[in-house]
């Protein structure tokens, strides 16, 4: 990913193309700046934002919420996935509840979250964790179920304890799966934190996005969204890089 390769050239080209289309669309149809500002206006807004130290404060808060929520989701996801992957009746018992929690529109819970966790970062961390946890858990379960029979046999023959089997076989076997879940998870944690900020509190980039929208400053809003997207991308690629370090032996890691 970070070696020099064609994508270093191709991605910017595709990007430039898309920005070109955007610009042309705005110009040709003379789209109102209240709906879609031109790329240049957005870029201007980004520069203004980056020059403002408060943007950085908000960014740090959002970053903290995402990372904390994500780490929580990873820990809880692997622990739950580990148990549910091994204990079939527990999976079947809790699965509908977990899926229900996942499907349920969290907006309803925000007032409760605020009552429980306050207006600050905690409610957003919880929201990020709740949303990000699901794919990590699902993939952990899949990973554990996909352990090769031969590998299971070896551990059985060695009379390994459940914990040893988990640590030495199931977890590493499931690692490529878990990492894929984490790749989806970090994206969802980002969405979770932002939605949380959208719906309550007065800190973070998500709040900035609503605030600028409410001030009808659409180009600043797109600027905030740009910053958010970059933040999300950086986090995502950090998780992707983890793959190389955690599964150097896996084909999917080699091919990256």
């Amino acid at each position, binding site marked *: 990913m970070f070696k020099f390769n064609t994508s270093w050239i191709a991605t910017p080209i595709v990007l430039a193309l898309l920005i070109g289309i955007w610009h042309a669309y705005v110009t040709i149809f003379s789209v109102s700046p209240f709906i879609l500002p031109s790329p240049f206006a957005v870029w201007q807004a980004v520069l203004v934002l980056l020059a403002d130290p408060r943007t950085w404060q908000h960014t740090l808060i959002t970053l903290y919420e995402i990372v904390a929520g994500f780490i929580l989701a990873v820990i809880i996801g692997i622990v739950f996935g580990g148990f549910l992957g091994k204990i079939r009746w527990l999976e079947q018992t809790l699965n509908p509840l977990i899926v229900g929690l996942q499907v349920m529109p969290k907006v309803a819970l925000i007032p409760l979250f605020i009552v429980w966790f306050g207006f600050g970062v905690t409610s957003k961390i919880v929201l990020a964790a709740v949303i990000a946890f699901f794919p990590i858990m699902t993939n952990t379960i899949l990973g554990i179920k996909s352990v*090769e029979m*031969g*590998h299971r*046999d*070896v551990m*059985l*023959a*060695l*009379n*390994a304890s459940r914990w*040893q089997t988990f640590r*030495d*076989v199931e977890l*590493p*076997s499931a*690692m490529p799966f878990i990492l894929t879940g984490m790749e989806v998870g970090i994206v969802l944690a980002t969405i979770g934190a932002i939605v949380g900020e959208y719906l309550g509190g007065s800190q973070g980039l998500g709040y900035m996005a609503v605030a600028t929208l409410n001030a009808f400053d659409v180009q600043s809003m797109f600027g905030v969204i740009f910053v958010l997207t970059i933040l999300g991308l950086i986090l995502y690629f950090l998780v992707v890089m983890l793959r190389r370090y955690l*599964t150097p*032996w*896996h084909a999917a890691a080699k091919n990256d």
Partner: protein
Amino acid sequence: MSVTEKAAIQTTAAPTTGARGAGIKLAGVEQRYGDPKSSVLALTDVNLEIGKGEFLVLLGPSGCGKTTLMRIIAGLLKSTSGKVEIDGQPLWNGNRRNDKVMEELGVVFQDANMFPWLTIEDNIALPLKLRGVSKTERRKRASELCELVGIKGFEKRWPRELSGGMRQRAAIARALSCKPQILLMDEPFGALDAMTREQMNLELQRIWMESGCTVVLVTHSIREAVFLADRVLLLSPRPGRMDTLKTIEIARPRSAYDQSTPEFQAYELELRKRLDTFA
């Protein structure tokens, strides 16, 4: 042979070549696969005592249930009926395996089953890790074992960097790492070349004699069976039954030259003839 000798089988006292190894006792072992209604009988009526320190070889046509029997002895499969005792202790207490008995087993599978996320060294030392042996000690033992099975220098490689035969040798090293009392091997040398295979046979004989452990080995090679075995158990095809139990009375240690003795040839021919009748 076979049918007439069968009666004698049960009573034949197991020879006690070694001293330290544990004995195995199978009584009325039967295995069905599939759900109760449409089940397939894979193995039936296995009654066998394997003596402490004995070297028993399982021989038989493909699909006769050698792997199945091996898995039953290894505690990987609870036979649908019958009893297994290791060293006088039942292998199963109800549906729980007897942990103490399991400690004494080392198993080599038909596939190498190396863990791709561990280096060869760590793969070999895994059983030691599970028993809480320190890292330095594990390293040391792994490198000894690599030398023993002839893959010295590959300690730090990933399994995918080794050829199939080399991986299988690593699997043998792994099974040996805990100095098991009972070594169960399911066609361990199938993936090795002829030369290494002969070497490994000699090596296995030496390891077995030194350690005095009990060995049960599955093979397709009649020559290998005669060369290694105290007794050869021939299984008949589906459902697998004990067909012939042949004691090989060639003095130990056996060398490669013993293979050309008329005595050896006679054993080989006898087994081959019996196998041929299954076709």
